[in-house]
């Protein structure tokens, strides 16, 4: 059967519709290809990605190098011993005079204000106030400027040369002499000079401590040489330790050690203070910051077989191997950050601003619209096909770009295999999320160009700023309800969900990042998807977000259609 035009009746309405769509999509693509601004915006996008990849090489890859996360390989006081070694020996890392093997003061006894017996005779190191009948004085005894060591001012023959206070009354002596000493002469005629001393000194003799005054004494140990340990010992010295089962302190714990980010989800008490710095805390009692009753351990909380929280005691597993941990974390952070910031927010906003704002409006302004509208084609159809043409270019571009960037990043990334195959679904997800954002923004910007041909671009810029802000807020806090009014929020949700589907252990990695101070920034850029409708399933969140983005796109096509259908075209 043929109709009066001689066309076969097997040609249905649909095949004709299809051909019309094909023609306008193709026309739109060719028009976009003939515009310089298209190439500029797509070129700038590619340039941005090249820049980010060079940043990856420059700084993310660098973080695979061993890093001293806890800073204990540093020698802060310059005494030749690292903080880690000083911690082990219980010496401070801020005092150059106190270091492993250094001579230390051992206090022995004192005379305080209410002791009855107020004289004592010995060869000691003294500190306080007393009358001292000296048999021998260590004229060399000195210390830091802030210490109260007495300056004896010896003359050529080694006799201290001090203020003569033999004629003073006691009150005058007590008031005048502070951090100093004075000469009272040989008081009892036994040939030994008596001094009044206020401060630190060392010597042999008899001390008389006046009522209400205080003196203590002791001795300095012999200095012993301790071999300084190389700083490398304190880099990556305390890795993340996990144990199969709960035999943490039991027999054979060495054998039960397993990799922490393993397929087996681990709950309970893990961790081992390899470098002993936790065990040395609290005078050797160790730290139990997480309060689970086990000192120097790490509590892995895994309620449903997924690690959702990691609480570690201080200085346990605090310096893990970067190659193993920060490499993976840094890489994932890079992928997520690039996907969210560069693809969804930047490309997602700028491509439609340049390519979709004038999709229909420019045809009106160029005066070429009459060519198309004198054909049997509805204005609504026209909008849809134009948007399809724009999406064919912009969508192909972002998906291709995301896969190319993904491939290069996966070649650069950590891991034993040459290409990280598990990255690819994430990059594909990024490409698709960006495409849906392009559809939604494209639909909105096109509508705005139609609503106000003159001021539409300003509407779009204001809208773009709103989207940018809401996108940024959504990255930091996806739970914030206001941000979910924005479009970028849902695309970012898509990426969050896709990440969890492709890398199911990301929650655990994020927790490890926080717990062990790896500082990769993963939890700044990624949080588990929130729009799961109570199922906690990433798949639901993904579908949910896709649906929202599609509904927004279609809704704005209808708005554009109702504006455009009523418009008279001069």
């Amino acid at each position, binding site marked *: 059967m043929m109709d009066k035009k001689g066309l076969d009746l097997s040609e249905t309405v649909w095949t004709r519709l299809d051909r*019309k769509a094909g023609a306008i999509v193709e*026309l739109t693509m060719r028009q976009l290809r003939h515009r310089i601004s298209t190439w500029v915006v797509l070129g700038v996008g590619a340039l941005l990605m090249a820049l980010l990849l060079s940043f990856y090489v420059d700084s993310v890859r660098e973080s695979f190098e061993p890093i001293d996360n806890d800073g204990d390989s540093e020698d802060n006081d310059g005494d030749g011993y690292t903080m880690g070694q000083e911690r082990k020996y219980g010496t401070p890392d801020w005092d150059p005079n106190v270091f492993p093997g250094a001579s230390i003061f051992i206090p022995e006894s004192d005379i305080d204000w209410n002791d009855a017996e107020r004289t004592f005779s010995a060869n000691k190191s003294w500190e306080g106030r007393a009358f001292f009948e000296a048999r021998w004085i260590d004229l060399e005894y000195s210390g830091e400027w802030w210490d109260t060591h007495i300056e004896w001012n010896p003359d050529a023959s080694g006799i201290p040369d001090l203020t003569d206070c033999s004629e003073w009354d006691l009150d005058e002596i007590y008031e005048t002499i502070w951090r100093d000493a004075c000469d009272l002469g040989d008081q009892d005629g036994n040939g030994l000079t008596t001094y009044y001393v206020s401060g630190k000194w060392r010597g042999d003799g008899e001390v008389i401590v006046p009522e209400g005054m205080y003196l203590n004494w002791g001795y300095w140990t012999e200095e012993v040489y301790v071999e300084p340990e190389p700083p490398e010992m304190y880099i990556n010295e305390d890795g993340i330790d996990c144990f199969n089962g709960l035999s943490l302190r039991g027999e054979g714990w060495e054998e039960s050690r397993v990799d922490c980010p393993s397929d087996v989800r681990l709950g309970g008490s893990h961790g081992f203070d390899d470098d002993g710095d936790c065990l040395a805390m609290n005078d050797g009692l160790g730290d139990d910051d997480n309060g689970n009753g086990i000192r120097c351990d790490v509590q892995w909380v895994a309620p449903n077989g997924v690690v959702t929280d990691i609480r570690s005691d201080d200085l346990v597993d605090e310096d893990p191997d970067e190659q193993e941990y920060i490499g993976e974390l840094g890489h994932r952070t890079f992928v997520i950050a690039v996907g969210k910031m560069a693809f969804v927010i930047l490309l997602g906003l700028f491509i439609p601003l340049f390519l979709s704002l004038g999709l229909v409006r420019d045809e009106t302004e160029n005066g*070429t619209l009459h060519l198309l*509208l*004198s*054909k*049997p084609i509805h204005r609504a159809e026209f909008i849809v096909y134009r948007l399809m043409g724009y999406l064919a270019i912009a969508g192909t571009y972002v998906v291709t770009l995301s896969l190319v960037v993904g491939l290069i990043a996966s070649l650069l990334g950590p891991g034993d295999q040459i290409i990280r195959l598990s990255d690819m679904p994430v990059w594909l997800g990024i490409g698709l999320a960006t495409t849906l954002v392009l559809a939604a923004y494209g639909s909105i910007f096109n509508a705005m160009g139609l609503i106000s041909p003159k001021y539409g671009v300003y509407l779009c810029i204001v809208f773009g700023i709103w989207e940018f802000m809401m996108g940024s807020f959504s990255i930091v806090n996806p739970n914030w309800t206001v941000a979910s009014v924005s479009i970028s929020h849902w695309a970012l949700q898509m990426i969050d969900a896709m990440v969890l589907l492709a890398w199911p252990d990301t929650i655990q990695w994020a927790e490890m990042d926080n717990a062990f101070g790896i500082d990769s920034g993963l939890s700044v850029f990624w949080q588990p998807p929130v729009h799961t409708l109570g199922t906690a399933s990433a798949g639901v969140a993904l579908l949910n977000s896709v649906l929202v983005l599609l509904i927004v796109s279609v809704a704005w096509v209808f708005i554009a259609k109702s504006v455009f259908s009523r418009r008279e*075209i*001069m």
Partner: protein
Amino acid sequence: MTMQSKEPPAVLIDQASKWYGQVIGINDLSLAIDGGVTGVLGPNGAGKSTLFKLMMGRIKPSQGSIRLFGVDPWANTSPYRRVGYVSESEKLYEWMTALDFVSTLARLHGMTREEATERSSHVLDFVGLTDVIHKELGKFSKGMRQRVKIAHALVHDPDLIILDEPLHGCDPLARTSIMSVIRELGEQGKTILVSSHILEEIERITEQIVILHNGRLLAIGNLHAIRDLLDKHPHRILINCEDPRSLAGLFIEEDPIFGVRFPREGQLEIHTNNLSAAHSILPSIVVKSKQKISSIENPDDNLESLLNYLIKEGQ
């Protein structure tokens, strides 16, 4: 055309008005057109383009109704399957070749790529652009562009063809070829509407005319009938010659001539009540005078004077 007689007419306009704020584009216009070539005449601003835009569903009538093949073009695009429209707009996709352009637009009629290419090369051949089908439109002359526009309007073999000032800005050669294309289409039995503000152009294409003035329908019918009415009205003929006074003496004796004037040196203006009779005696008098005549003009034989006449008649 028996089939068409059962159908609603190609164009049916019923008391349509269109105003833009205070400005009136079309004022209470009723018109039915079906078959043949119809010239739509009117000075600039008479409402020709507004009328066409109403027919093409680009604008909505403020009052009254427009129907193409019985369907309202503002609400429904289905009549455009049978309509070809050549807009007054000069804008084309400059980066496309002629074949590309016509076939892309042909595909909007639901043709396959192959059909579209075949039909397009056929219509481009018909409008005489066979040699340049692979040339970019940006490099086309005005006349060639008009012909491409006509080709795109013809590609789907429409029943109604609307041409808005198709001869505007074309050189004489292009005019002639476009006119012959239009005449040929008319002979094929299509309904064709051609607008122009130049009487002579329309006269060479068709006798059936519609005259618009200030958005109103001033006259409709056969151009020659209207013209005969006009001819019986006092008319001027301007003759540039060597000795106007001796020539005037010869003319004044003739019956259709009732007066002469000498507006300028070497110029004679004769007044007549019957233009065709005056024109028929003119050659013999010129021969009799043995003078060298440099030109003969009919200053009243244009659209403006036709309009002036029709407006006066209407009052």
